[in-house]
């Protein structure tokens, strides 16, 4: 018999800005389901995760995706994702990177009304000479919330690790919010760990400049948002896939603004 699931509350660090009430509505049978990805030595693995409405319907179903990723010696794992539906849409990744391995992550959250969309990552650099790079962009409006909680643990023997994370939030309306929580636990002394986070609004000067050239406000906004989100997919070499993710993201923007 399986044990009863104890749902997290906002007192749990990894759920601090989440909407734990929205968990009550989900199929709890899937709460503890983890997808395991094992990237074998020297291999390259890439996948995309999309949580978005199907067609014109708006989905409020809570969606939780949990991934456990092992990046073996000299392997590369690249994950790119868009979260654009669900009252709560959340992707969690627990990643272990072995020696010489690289983990690349580009994520985008979008949402309005009272939705919460978030990426929560935990990267364990237990081995030396490994690298990771995470770029997350959040665009929110209405009372929407976008979160990126990124924890990086660098163990004592994991010298020469290079771990980066970069978050930017764009708030299209008053009332929307984004939260970024970088959490670095570093026990090795010869490592590079960089994190950055900024929050802003659409550049009014750019919007006026674009209008003065004949672009209607919606078109100008779309171009600016596309430029903003583009950073998250820079590392995605497959241009078609990159366009597909961008279309999903911008499609959401069209629908709810």
């Amino acid at each position, binding site marked *: 018999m399986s044990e009863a699931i104890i749902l997290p509350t906002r007192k749990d660090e990894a759920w601090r800005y989440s909407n734990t009430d929205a968990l009550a509505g989900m199929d709890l049978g899937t709460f503890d389901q983890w997808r395991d990805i094992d990237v074998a030595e020297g291999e390259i693995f890439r996948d995309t995760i999309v949580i978005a409405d199907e067609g014109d319907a708006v989905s409020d179903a809570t969606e939780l995706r949990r991934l456990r990723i092992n990046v073996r010696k000299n392997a590369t794992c690249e994950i790119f994702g868009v979260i654009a539906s669900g009252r709560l849409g959340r992707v969690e990744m627990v990643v272990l990177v072995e020696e010489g391995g690289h983990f690349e992550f580009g994520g985008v959250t979008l949402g309005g009304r009272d939705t919460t969309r978030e990426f929560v990552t935990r990267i364990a650099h237990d081995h030396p000479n490994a690298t990771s790079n995470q770029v997350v962009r959040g665009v929110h409006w209405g009372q929407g919330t976008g979160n990126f909680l990124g924890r990086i643990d660098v163990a004592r023997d994991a010298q020469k690790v290079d771990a980066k994370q970069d978050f930017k939030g764009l708030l299209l309306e008053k009332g929307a919010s984004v939260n970024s929580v970088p959490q670095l636990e570093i026990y090795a002394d010869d490592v590079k760990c960089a994190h950055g986070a900024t929050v802003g609004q659409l550049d009014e000067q750019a919007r006026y*400049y*674009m209008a*003065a050239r*004949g*672009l209607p406000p919606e*078109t100008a906004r779309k*171009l*600016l948002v596309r430029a903003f989100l*583009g*950073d998250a997919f820079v590392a995605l070499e497959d241009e078609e896939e990159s366009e597909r993710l961008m279309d999903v993201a911008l499609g959401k923007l069209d629908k709810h603004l």
Partner: protein
Amino acid sequence: MLEIKDLHAEIDGKQILNGLSLNVNAGEVHAIMGPNGAGKSTLAYVLGGRPGYEVTGGSVTFAGEDLLDMDPHERAAAGLFLGFQYPVEIPGVSNVQFLREALNAQRQAREEEPLSGGEFLKHAKEQAALLKLDMEMLKRQVNVGFSGGEKKRAEMVQMGILDPKLAVLDETDSGLDIDALKTVGNGINAIMRKPDKGVLLITHYQRLLDYVKPDFVHILSQGRIVKTGDAELSQRLEAEGYDAVMAEAA
């Protein structure tokens, strides 16, 4: 083409334009000169519909329509081009993408067919060549990393691509060295010196007017036009200064 009547405008409650009247007919180049703070840039922004610039009186008619009633993008589609004194940088958006979207948005508003990618690039290349701007620059992000002179030349390439009826050019000559000044001047002539087009050149100095010969020169002071003459007036301003020429007008 452009009729400005008794225009009053303010920013943050401060009155800047005080009854400005001016007519620009098709085929004419008008220069507006004036000391700092006379309201030159305010006139440009009011015509361009920039948020924050409030019209408190008067009227502006453009090609028979009420210009002040239009949104900024509608003014552009109607054929108004505003050349910025400080062109804005737009990171992440390429010039080609920006201008193609802008041109096609204007064409759509005028119920014209959009240009294909190939047609657009051919058109853009011709305009870039006219302003001696490397086509590679147009593939880069809008104004990002451009020098002051490159921004102004890019601005004129934009004008060439969008092909407006009326260009309001706000201190397009600032930040240009002598060679660039000549290139920009020749570009303005090639693009706008046509019987069906008009130009309003807003400038502090005479030097651009050596290349783009104005049909009329107006002196703007304290938000209104205090003196109008021909090209000779701008030369006198350069030689004698605003104070001397304006004292005579008073």
